[in-house]
């Protein structure tokens, strides 16, 4: 961090918040609020005289509330810049009657109560989001007694207690009596791999190795300490991790397969009685411990959400930011020019975070050093003669790539920002938007070709490029058997499927139509597939009104990994297709003929 602070070509804005982002790849405009710290960071020498006289005592967030700080403080010892900051919501003020003590003792006169927030407008070509993560709050898991017993702590609290810069200067003590614990237990997967709704379903990746590291550290401090780790599975998959795990076992750390069902405190001693089913030995065990450490999992950081919305990024199912492609573009996002690194993307250790940050920096650097930005030829093109300037396209564009300069003026597409999902073209009722390489004419021609001969024997399936089409591929490579009656039309996104495409297929004699796309959390165009659902609702209503069985139109979300689901969907569609009679098809063609 200090190297970053000193680098001549890096401008570090601490204690600042991004308020707005506009523009597009290569030309982002970012508005940053640099909050007033009421201390001149260039002049402050961090002598600490101000904090000594500050009368306001607050829990120290960095020390997990295990010690206190003042209203004027340095957030943590290695903070850059090494300068004090005043929390004005806690400060008593500069009026000498109220307080003003820090002003009196600051020789450098660097405290300024009149300091104001500063708004900075920055122009940048690329953005890397590295907003980190939070840890799970174990209070809902009442069986572990975190909210009831002082000697039940989290791994974050343990980190502070064993740190030389911590509240006890590295001496591990029990919070009830200040004595060093001799018997410590660790509970793994606290808030992770949970299916009961109180935790998160995903593995937090880092907790197993963090516990292994902690056990070795504690054994170094006190080789006689009895350490027991309660776990579901120890996941030691990284380079050198298994060795560390073996070292921990060799050092005498006991690993018990099974998570505690109950923790009770002995009120006389403050000791904890842990009841656990040892699933390896197939017996119920009771352990008396001096301290219990909950190995809490990782959760998405709440403060990332406004950034995500500003940059129109997607979230994966677990709430972390979603990459553009898990294998081929792991640090890119669907918004061009925006990259992700570290735990904002998923829980990961330092090594993986550094690896990902290096990759993101390299990707951004490549972009910034290019003379021109090459855009894939899949973008939307507006025909100004047809466009009425209604703005419907701009409203559904997930990337903010379309704007209508003035009422009734033709819409304008920023090609560099357009990702090519095509939901704007499907939304336009005037045929004013052409998706390059996925034009209406091309798709109508495909429907015509599919249904040219014996249309009653096939059904039309619109599949999005990223998930459903790949899911069909997965089914194929896995040699899964399914009926050959599906005729797939690939679109970049299910949001590209114009209602007219579906109606055209029915008008041409299709017995059934399937629209398929990414699961909500996997949508590669942020939320473009929500428009698909809206259009499907409209189509079902129209079909019903026209006397056509709306069930003949189906919608399914199939991910790239769901080959099995794709095969099952096709089998279901085939059953549906076979149930449609020639008379029904003829009736449909007749009643839809007058629908424009």
């Amino acid at each position: 961090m200090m190297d970053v602070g000193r680098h001549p070509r890096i401008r570090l804005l601490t204690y600042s918040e991004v308020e707005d982002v506009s523009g597009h790849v290569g030309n982002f405009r970012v508005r940053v609020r640099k909050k007033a710290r009421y201390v001149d960071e260039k002049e402050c020498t961090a002598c600490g005289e101000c904090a000594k006289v500050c009368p306001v005592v607050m829990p120290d967030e960095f020390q997990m509330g295990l010690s206190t700080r003042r209203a004027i403080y340095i957030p943590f010892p290695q903070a850059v810049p090494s300068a004090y900051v005043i929390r004005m919501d806690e400060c008593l003020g500069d009026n000498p009657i109220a307080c003003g003590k820090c002003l009196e003792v600051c020789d450098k006169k660097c405290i300024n109560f009149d300091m104001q927030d500063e708004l900075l407008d920055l122009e940048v070509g690329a953005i890397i989001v590295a907003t980190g993560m939070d840890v799970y709050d174990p209070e809902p898991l009442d069986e572990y007694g975190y909210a009831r017993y002082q000697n039940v702590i989290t791994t974050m609290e343990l980190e502070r207690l064993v740190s030389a810069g911590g509240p006890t200067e590295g001496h591990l003590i029990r919070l009830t009596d200040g004595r060093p614990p001799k018997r410590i237990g660790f509970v793994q997967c606290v808030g992770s791999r949970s299916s009961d709704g109180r935790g998160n379903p995903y593995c937090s990746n880092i907790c197993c190795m963090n516990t292994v590291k902690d056990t070795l550290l504690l054994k170094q401090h006190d080789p006689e300490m009895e350490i027991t780790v309660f776990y579901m599975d120890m996941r030691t998959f990284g380079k050198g991790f298994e060795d560390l795990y073996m070292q921990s076992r060799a050092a005498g750390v006991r690993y018990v397969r099974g998570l505690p069902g109950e923790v009770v405190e002995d009120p006389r001693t403050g000791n904890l009685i842990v009841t656990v089913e040892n699933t390896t030995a197939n017996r119920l065990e009771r352990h008396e411990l001096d301290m219990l450490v909950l190995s809490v999992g990782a959760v998405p950081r709440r403060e990332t959400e406004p950034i995500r919305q500003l940059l129109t990024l997607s979230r994966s199912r677990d709430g972390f930011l979603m990459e553009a492609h898990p294998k081929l573009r792991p640090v890119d996002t669907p918004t061009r020019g925006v990259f992700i690194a570290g735990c904002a993307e998923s829980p990961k250790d330092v090594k993986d975070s550094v690896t990902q940050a290096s990759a993101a920096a390299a990707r951004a650097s490549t972009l910034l050093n290019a003379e021109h930005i090459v855009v894939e030829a899949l973008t939307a093109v507006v025909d100004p003669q047809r466009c009425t300037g209604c703005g419907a396209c701009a409203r559904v564009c997930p990337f903010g790539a379309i704007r209508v300069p003035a009422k009734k003026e033709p819409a304008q597409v920023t090609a560099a920002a357009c990702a090519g999902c095509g939901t704007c073209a499907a939304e336009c009722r005037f045929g004013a938007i052409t998706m390059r390489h996925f034009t209406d004419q091309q798709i109508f021609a495909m429907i015509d070709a599919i249904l040219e001969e014996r249309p009653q024997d096939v059904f039309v399936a619109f599949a999005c490029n990223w998930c459903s089409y790949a899911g069909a591929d997965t089914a194929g490579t896995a040699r899964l058997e399914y009926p050959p009656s599906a005729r797939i039309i690939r679109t970049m996104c299910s949001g590209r499927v114009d209602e007219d495409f579906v109606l055209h297929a029915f008008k041409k004699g299709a017995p059934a139509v399937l629209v398929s796309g990414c699961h909500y959390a996997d949508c590669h165009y942020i939320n473009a597939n929500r428009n698909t659902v809206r259009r499907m609702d409209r189509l079902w209503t129209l079909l019903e009104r026209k006397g056509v069985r709306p069930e003949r139109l189906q919608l399914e979300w199939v991910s790239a990994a769901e080959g099995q689901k794709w095969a099952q969907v096709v089998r279901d569609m085939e059953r549906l297709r076979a149930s449609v009679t020639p008379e029904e098809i003829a009736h449909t063609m007749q009643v839809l003929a007058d629908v424009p």
Partner: protein
Amino acid sequence: MAAKDRFRCMRCGHEWEGEDSPDRERVCPRCQSNSVRKLPHPAPAQG
């Protein structure tokens, strides 16, 4: 209290009430299909 949305599965015909959300996929609780139609709210009674 806001009126609940009514849904019908277009695969198995199951109907249920719930809340529609742009953050949550529609899934039929009976057959797990995503072909879930939000039924139009009935028109308010006149008079």
